[in-house]
């Protein structure tokens, strides 16, 4: 049973309703003709129009008077553990080739509605990336291929199996299976079964965001890093908090050494050398903007400085200075430091490995004995495959979740070969008819991972399991089972998988119990994955250093990067949540763009939104300009993953495909290239959710200070506003016209540690899935009507400050303060309804639709709201959102918000939260549904709720535990303790002086920048 919920049926007489509505279009002759061109008979007088209108409305009203009949359909045979309207959680695993997350799947009435991090996992430790948060929507994606196909026609499983088995048996050349990295021991065994059945079978793995060079430099495996033990981090272009290898795992480790308190006044120091301003770079203490071609010389210079080798050449003065400083600090922290690089140049990675070796980090902050497996792709082999395919040496090719036509720099060559039938047999196991799959003869779509059994080993010794949480929605079959069928086995993949686990859990009597425990926990320790083979030989250090000595290139360099949301643009490419998730830095939604430094834009007279033609290696794409502070001079950056053509109606033709600009060199795929830029004359607006850039010295909004100051005196790191009273200066809350509320039961509150917040946006998506928040599309974002209840404000630092008033004049200084620095510091501030105790919105509502609760919450009652929007006008934090349209039924939004339009998509909605109608205001409710549920559970068990038992979706999803939710009425709650401890130190309220007394408290951000690197900060 797919749906257990009743299907609603209207019990009106169908003829009556039909006539009532048919009258309208049938003979209502409203003509939009030009005046004079229409004769009188065809122009309806206004009165007739009103009459008809009136009749239609009256008829429709009468027809609607009869209440519709609702059906209540119970189970035929109710499963014991399922009770309607009680959510169950099942442990599972999200891994789609790049981002590994151990998850808990919230299942309601037999359908997954939300994903949460699995706290049992030692790898991701309860964190969950934005991409994984949104992944539940992919399950209900109507663009998935819903059945098997052969040569354009729907076929049954058996027919396709027969044809494929025959085809594979008689293949004249190699049989190649192309896939992204596979970390599933079970899947690898299933593929081995298939390989054993046919001769000359080859499995080629490639990563869209390749780490081939890193693998090559470390003997074919990825080192596993432990950022929590690192005092000095030097990253050469690795966006390890956003997109590099395992961001959730690294974020969690990274912040453990970034959180400060009066007891722990130490922090790691983080140097970042990078081209585009990344999420990681914006969190760094020292960030140097460099060209991609400079990364090699910097690595070499760092090696020379650390290992005491030769001098460094070809670096800019700024880079030189910071490299020297970084080297000094690295050496002072031998064994507790780490150098990482996101480069895919084997020479760079070889040198980086040598630096870590020289610093004694191997075995402490970096481990090669418990390697990570999440990247195994070898660029050389993929290149070889493409050449083989073109030459006709490949007899049969199977694409398993691989879409190289779209996401490989040589995709066009593959497309040509497939179209030219260079391989006799082409099969796709991709979940939809994507760019590659649609060119294949056979399509055997895989289940969604939420419909499948599988196992994973992201890291040596750490296993996790995925289990089906819903009956397959479509006539698809799990890919592993498909492999087994083609290998001639009739075993189910579940049995096959379980058999494999006997080597991990032992074959004795306890196996079933142990297996049940693993299914329950979702994670286990043990290893099952064979060490991947890597054929490319590593470079010697001497060879690597000689390669890096080359002269720097001229011309504009473009760097290609992944977005935190869309990533490589796989099945996430059709996910509206991720398209509308603002980029953490540029705050742009819906599409990619050319990020250029301000200087370049000024020199070329480019305005934001001007469309440029970007050409590299004979291929070109057209994208609008975005002026990006922090972008290295002489470079531009472009996000990959956009410009899909066959992903579905959400993602098709959003942006342009930047993979074509990457270089497929013999040493591997390089994600930068020299480009020429040309203005086309067209414009294409970029939909940004935040357009103001700096806070213009308004310290009341967001506060930061240095670690040095914090060490000296924690009581001086935050500025507090004081108001003048007859008794002298006082805190604003000492003066009030308002009567204070008395909270007897609970007083809910939240603390947001700006030091821990890395700006990843996981909370934004967590909130969106939990609260049924509509997606509005590009045009509405441009109109500033996005609906996110939670946003992350990003502020850049400015080079100008209030102390220039006298010198330059007030107006001029203010104008200058609006512009961010060329290499700005960045601060993130999650912003949601502050649940003010003296809420300005409550007093202006004419219909009492927004009121204060006895638990300190600012309540929003949708069915009472008449949409005056007074409250939004009066909100100092601008967190209220207005429903300008019926986003769930207005056909304008069907493309972007399609999941609210179909029965299939609506299965993802949270049944405890109302879908808001047009004309009402909405805002963060502090997940009132979770609070009510938690209280009810406590009441049922006749006790008070335990601290940490009730938690909002944002706090739950934060990978760095920056958000703490709790009961301020309970003196022993972690929140109360934190607020007591931080009172007068880091705790501050945003816009404290207006005395609205928010229930959300922020903790001042502390930076570990030495004063000499931040001369401006000394002034501040």
């Amino acid at each position: 049973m797919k749906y257990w919920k009743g299907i609603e049926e209207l019990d009106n007489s169908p003829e009556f309703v039909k006539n009532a509505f048919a009258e309208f279009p049938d003979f209502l002759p409203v003509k939009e003709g030009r005046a004079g061109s229409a004769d009188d008979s065809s122009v309806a007088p206004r009165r007739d129009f009103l009459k008809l209108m009136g009749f239609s409305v009256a008829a429709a009203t009468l027809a609607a008077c009869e209440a519709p009949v609702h059906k209540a359909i119970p189970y035929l045979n109710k499963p014991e553990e399922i009770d309607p309207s009680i959510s169950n959680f099942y442990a599972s695993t999200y891994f789609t080739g790049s981002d590994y997350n151990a998850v808990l799947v919230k299942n309601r009435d037999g359908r997954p509605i939300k994903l949460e991090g699995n706290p049992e996992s030692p790898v991701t430790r309860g964190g969950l990336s934005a991409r994984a948060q949104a992944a539940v929507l992919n399950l209900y994606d109507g663009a998935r291929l819903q059945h098997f196909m052969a040569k354009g026609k729907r076929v049954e499983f058996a027919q396709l199996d027969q044809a494929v088995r025959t085809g594979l048996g008689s293949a004249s050349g190699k049989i190649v299976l192309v896939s992204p990295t596979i970390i599933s021991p079970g899947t690898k065994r299933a593929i081995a079964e298939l390989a054993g059945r046919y001769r000359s079978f080859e499995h080629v793995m490639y990563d869209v965001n390749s780490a081939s060079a890193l693998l090559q430099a470390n003997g074919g495996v990825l080192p596993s890093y432990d950022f929590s033990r690192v005092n000095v981090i030097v990253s050469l272009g690795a966006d390890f908090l956003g997109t590099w290898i395992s961001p959730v795992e690294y974020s969690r480790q990274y912040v453990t050494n970034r959180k400060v308190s009066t007891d722990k006044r130490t922090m790691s120091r983080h140097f970042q050398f990078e081209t585009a301003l990344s999420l990681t770079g914006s969190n760094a203490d020292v960030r140097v903007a460099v060209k991609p071609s400079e990364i090699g010389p910097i690595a070499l210079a760092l090696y020379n400085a650390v290992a005491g080798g030769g001098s460094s050449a070809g670096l800019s003065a700024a880079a030189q200075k910071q490299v020297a400083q970084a080297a000094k600090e690295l050496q002072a922290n031998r064994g507790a430091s780490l150098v990482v690089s996101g480069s895919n140049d084997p020479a760079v990675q070889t040198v980086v490995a040598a630096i870590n070796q020289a610093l004694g980090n191997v075995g402490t902050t970096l481990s090669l004995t418990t390697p990570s497996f999440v990247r195994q792709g070898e660029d050389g082999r993929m290149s070889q495959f493409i050449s083989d395919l073109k030459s006709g040496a490949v007899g049969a090719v199977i694409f398993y979740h691989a879409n190289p036509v779209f996401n490989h720099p040589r995709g066009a060559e593959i497309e040509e070969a497939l179209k030219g039938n260079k391989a006799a047999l082409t099969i796709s196991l991709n979940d939809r008819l994507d760019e590659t799959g649609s060119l294949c003869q056979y399509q055997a779509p895989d289940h969604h991972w939420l419909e499948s059994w599988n196992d994973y080993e992201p890291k040596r010794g750490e296993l996790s399991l995925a289990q089906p949480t819903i009956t397959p929605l479509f006539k698809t079959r799990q890919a592993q089972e498909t492999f087994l069928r083609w290998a001639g086995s009739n075993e189910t993949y579940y049995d096959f998988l379980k058999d494999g686990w006997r080597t991990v859990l032992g074959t004795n009597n306890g196996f079933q119990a142990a297996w049940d425990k693993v299914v329950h926990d979702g994670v286990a320790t043990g290893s099952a994955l064979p060490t991947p083979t890597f054929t490319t030989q590593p470079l010697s250090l001497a060879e690597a250093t000689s390669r890096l000595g080359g002269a720097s290139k001229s011309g504009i360099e473009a760097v290609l990067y992944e977005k935190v949301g869309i990533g490589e643009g796989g099945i996430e490419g059709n996910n509206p949540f991720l398209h509308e998730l603002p980029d953490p830095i540029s705050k742009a939604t819906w599409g990619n763009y050319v990020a250029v430094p301000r200087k370049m834009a000024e020199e070329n007279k480019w305005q934001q939104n001007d469309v440029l033609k970007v050409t590299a290696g004979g291929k070109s794409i057209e994208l609008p300009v975005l002026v990006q502070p922090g972008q290295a001079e002489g470079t531009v950056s472009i996000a990959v993953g956009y410009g899909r053509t066959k992903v579905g109606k959400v993602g098709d033709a959003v942006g342009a495909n930047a993979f074509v600009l990457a270089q497929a060199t013999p040493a591997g795929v390089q994600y930068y290239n020299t480009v020429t830029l040309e203005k086309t004359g067209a414009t294409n607006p970029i939909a940004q959710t935040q357009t103001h850039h700096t806070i213009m010295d308004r310290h009341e909004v967001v506060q930061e200070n240095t670690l040095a100051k914090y060490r000296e005196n924690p009581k001086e790191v935050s500025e507090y506003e004081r108001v003048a009273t007859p008794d002298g200066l006082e805190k604003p809350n000492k003066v009030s016209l308002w009567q204070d509320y008395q909270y007897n039961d609970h007083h809910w509150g939240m603390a947001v540690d700006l030091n821990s917040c890395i700006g990843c946006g996981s909370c934004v998506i967590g909130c969106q899935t939990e609260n049924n928040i509509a997606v509005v599309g590009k045009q509405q974002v441009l109109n500033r009507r996005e609906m996110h209840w939670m946003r992350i404000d990003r502020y850049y630092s400015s080079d100008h400050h209030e102390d220039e008033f006298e010198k330059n004049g007030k107006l001029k200084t203010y104008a200058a303060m609006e512009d961010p620095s060329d290499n700005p510091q960045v601060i993130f501030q999650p912003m949601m309804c502050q649940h003010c105790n003296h809420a300005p919105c409550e007093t202006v509502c004419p219909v009492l639709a927004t009121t204060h609760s006895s638990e300190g919450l600012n309540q929003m009652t949708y069915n009472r709201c008449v949409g005056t929007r007074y409250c939004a006008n009066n909100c100092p934090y601008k967190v209220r959102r207005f429903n300008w349209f019926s986003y769930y039924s207005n056909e304008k939004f069907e493309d972007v918000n399609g999941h609210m339009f179909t029965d299939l998509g609506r299965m993802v909605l949270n049944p405890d939260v109302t879908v808001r109608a047009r004309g009402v205001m909405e805002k963060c409710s502090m997940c009132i549904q979770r609070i009510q549920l938690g209280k009810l559970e406590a009441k049922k068990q006749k006790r008070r709720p335990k601290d940490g038992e009730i938690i909002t979706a944002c706090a739950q999803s934060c990978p760095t535990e920056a958000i703490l939710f709790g009961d301020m009425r309970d003196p022993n709650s972690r929140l109360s303790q934190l607020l007591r401890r931080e009172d007068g130190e880091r705790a501050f309220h945003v816009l404290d002086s207006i005395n609205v007394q928010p229930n959300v408290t922020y903790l001042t951000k502390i930076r570990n920048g030495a004063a000499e690197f931040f001369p401006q900060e000394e002034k501040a």
Partner: protein
Amino acid sequence: MNSFLSRTSSWVLALFLAVAAPALAQNTASVTKNGVAPGGAAAATPAAAAAPAGAPGAGGGDAAAIAAGDALFKNNCAQCHAVKDKVVGPALGGITKRRSISWIIPWVHNSSKVIASGDEYAVKLYNDNGKQQMPAFPQLSDKEITSIVAWVTSQETAASPTAATGGTTAENAGGADGQDAAGASKYTDVLLIVLVVVLIVLVVTLAIIANLMKDVLQGRKDLDGRDVEVLNQRFDWTKLYHSTVLRGIVGTVFALVLLYEGVQSVMAVGLTQGYQPTQPIAFSHKIHAGENQINCAYCHTSVYKSKSANIPSANICMNCHSQIKTESPEIKKIYRAIERKQPIQWVRIHNLPDLAYFNHSQHTQVGGIQCQTCHGPIQNMDVVYQYSALTMGWCINCHRETPLNTKGNGYYDNLVKLHDKSNNAVPFTVSSNGGTECSKCHY
């Protein structure tokens, strides 16, 4: 004249009735409400009262343990067990005499394991109950099982004078309430009729006397001109007809009545009180809940633990109807549904709008409200109808008037203390704990 007078009297009567009716209705309503609340309390008291009595048998069961056992029993056991009667599993009364607690605990945790171990009693029990296995409850702790047993023991002692289970107590209480209420309303009706008859007789007598006097006076000759004028004075109807004051009054009353009726009918749009659709299977609550006294939670399995009470799935019907009344054409419909694998499409009676959140367990498990409070005399309904209005006003009124069921619930301890300190005399109702705030039901 006569007819006019009688007409006037009936108008007066109608007016009187119109004024008195709401008051009367309120009386009945308050009677019902008052009747129900003690009923609920009565159901709860035996358990508490029986606590000391149950203590020795249960091995140190105190009042708290028994209260906890009550909830646990309803959530986990009541589907198959009763204290006195055999339902699916055997009656649990006297369980401590039959088996030791050290035997019961492993049995509840995993009965099939005990059977497999070859325990003689367990095997016999299994065979005696049609080889139907009791589901395992590994989630229950030893302490929880002990408290369930404590509750059962407390029930067997308390059960003999009163009815066996909470459900039956409630039904008795509910039934009695109904009678009380009906009795009261009948009494007022009789009184009213007598009053009306007396009034009519008086008016008629008065008219007769007046006519007689007139005739007598007309027979006398000694009357002067003024007296004759008075005697022969005729009522001027046209004057009344032309009176602006009267016209104004009538017009206003008419307009007000029209307005009132209009508002009433508009307010009733979407109200489905009394909605009684025909169901695909003629299931009778009267037979099941009334005559056979099956506990509500036996079929509505999640009423004590979930938002929805849960319409029973066909396999619950089959627990009994695989044996009972298998030939009935209505029950054959269930067989057919199972054979065809097509679930039964019941017609939903209680439809709350999507914007209102209602949770059954909040009211049943925490609030201790009886099913009948909202669903009416369900045990007497052959075909279920919507008893309550289910309007927001109806919800709010109850939240304003109902005292919170705080007894023995640790969640409320401090709240009760704080409430009593500030305003001792006022009862601690749902609304005084924030129960009428918007976001308690709308989010």
